[in-house]
């Protein structure tokens, strides 16, 4: 599959945007401006960017919390995202939710429920709807290596496979679930082996190679759209920070981090673009500049945004409010 120059530039843009936006969030966290927790997808951005960029506009995603790239690629603006982190009214959820617990149906992004793997059956259900209605749309969902140990993972993959649903499941295998290394999480070598239990085709891809992730996703979506059923895609990568900002991750061997540092997805993409003449130094600089400006703007916007009113807490429980009875 040949990937167009423009697409490559966009992939690079979103990689950078994801990295720098999350870095900015981390620094806001350190300044005590983010009242709740903060996680980043640092070092694993190629996964969320690659798989979401390969989707069509009409498709839907049911992401997890290391999927910042998905929200950005789908079109949720950095302004709304930073405002979300700061608990402002202009944030994606108007202050109702924090950090990456985002969802916006207008961009085909389902909300992320903290409970890992909960979004897997939800994605399968969206795919079921597409199948029932005969629409050529697909659903994509992801979770961590740890998330694949949950029952909902099993029930979703089984369901999707029996019904040959147009859904693609991704696993961000960053080798740790909080402090728990892969070998305490599963007895298999590759997470992809999990898919054997469902006779579901699987792929293993270098999760630090955004172009590879993009390509393998695109192929899987194509099959799904053609009625050939679901695919499970394991993206191998490494979590380069602690589980969250307050975790120093002492349990991770330093050498492992050293080794993976060299495989940084942004570095890799930069080299790929330059070496193959897919981009010039200047073009990359321009992109960096754009990223920088967008983030500056987002932070300013968010910091100047108002907090919601306290009593908005009791609004919007029901989509169909019951006139007769005020519950609150």
């Amino acid at each position: 599959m040949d990937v167009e120059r423009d697409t490559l530039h966009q992939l690079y843009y979103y990689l950078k945007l994801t990295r720098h936006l999350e870095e900015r969030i981390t620094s806001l966290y350190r300044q005590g401006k983010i009242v709740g927790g903060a996680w980043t997808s640092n070092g694993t951005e190629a996964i969320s960017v690659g798989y979401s960029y390969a989707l069509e506009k009409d498709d839907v995603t049911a992401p997890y919390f290391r999927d910042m790239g998905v929200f950005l690629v789908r079109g949720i603006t950095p302004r709304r995202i930073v405002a979300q982190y700061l608990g402002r009214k202009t944030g994606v959820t108007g202050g109702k939710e924090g950090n990456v617990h985002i969802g916006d149906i207008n961009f085909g992004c389902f909300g992320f429920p903290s409970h890992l793997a909960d979004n897997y059956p939800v994605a399968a259900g969206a795919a079921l709807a597409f199948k029932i209605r005969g629409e050529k749309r697909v659903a994509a969902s992801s979770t961590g290596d740890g998330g694949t140990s949950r029952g909902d993972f099993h029930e979703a993959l089984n369901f999707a496979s029996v019904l040959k649903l147009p859904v693609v499941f991704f696993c961000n295998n960053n080798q740790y679930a909080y402090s728990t290394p892969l070998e305490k999480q599963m007895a298999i070598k590759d997470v992809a082996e999990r898919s054997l239990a469902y006779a579901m085709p699987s792929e293993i891809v270098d999760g630090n190679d955004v172009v590879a992730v993009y390509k393998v996703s695109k192929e899987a979506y194509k099959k799904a759209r053609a009625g050939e059923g679901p695919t499970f895609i394991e993206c191998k990568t490494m979590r380069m920070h602690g589980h969250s900002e307050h975790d120093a991750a002492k349990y991770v061997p330093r050498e492992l981090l050293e080794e993976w540092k060299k495989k940084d997805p942004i570095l890799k993409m930069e080299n790929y673009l330059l070496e193959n003449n897919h981009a010039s130094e200047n073009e990359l600089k321009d992109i960096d500049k754009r990223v920088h400006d967008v983030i500056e703007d987002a932070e300013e916007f968010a910091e100047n945004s108002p907090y919601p009113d306290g009593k908005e807490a009791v609004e919007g429980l029901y989509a169909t409010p019951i006139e007769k009875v005020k519950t609150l």
Partner: protein
Amino acid sequence: MKEITYVEAIHQALWEEMERDDSVFILGEDVGIYGGAFRVTEGMYEKFGELRVLDTPLSESGFTGAAIGASLVGMRPVVEMQFADFISCAFDQIVNVAAKNYYRWGGKTPIVIRAPYGGNIHGGAFHSQCPEGWFFHTPGLKLVAPAFPSDAKGLLKAAIRDDDPVIFFEHKFLYRRIKEEVPEDDYVIPIGEARIVQEGSDISVITYGAMVHTALEASKNLEESGISLEIVDLRTLMPLDKETVFDSVKKTNKVIVLYEATRSGGVGAEVAALISEEVFNYLDGPILRISAPDTPVPYSPPMEEYYLPQVEDVVEAAEKLAAY
């Protein structure tokens, strides 16, 4: 109007909604070819096809999650739990995903979960539970629990058309035991409205589900002693129609809360708490509760009888309260 059973009313509502709206579909274990463990979906597989009457693998969490996902992209799935007892396996998807979607991020989740619940069928601890209390304590859900065929039909239609997740508690004991004339045309009973099924002057009995019929029988038995019960059938548990409950209390000044679920916490406790908080001044006596005790549902008939609220329990409580 034709007399039909409670289960036929549910069947009718489903059938009509499936015909009316292409986005309605049914999923669950054995709902297709078999027509459902309680035959609620009989004939639908043949009529609407296997994708709209979907036999699922044995995976309550999986297919409930799938219903949620389908609803987020515009479908109106109706999930059947084979028995309400198995809803515990889908608990997380219901309370954390479905219930919170709209509040958290505006995701509309118009699913209906049909939960055949309740005892008196010698089903033991795993085929008799009344799990509504768990969901009553979960903001974001709507809960309905009809006691009559006509309400069952109208409320199921309302549930399907509602844009929020609704759990439809259908009482297994009533399925084939009660009949009623039910309008054959399309009608909806609004969610959130209780109904006075019997006017009375001395004591308000606040109840729902199979216990409505227990209350009605008790009321007959009390005619002799001249105690007049006003029976309020909540019909919708969440959101609760406080107005109708309070109006009744203001009129009778005495209250019995009657429910089949276990005693502590849950719907019955809330009804009592609401009354003691908001219309305390109208009370002429303690709020009595008649419920199952705090144990699992026992199997052996004498035990189950002891366990479930009986007509005599209501009669006794009413006499006590009347004399107060």
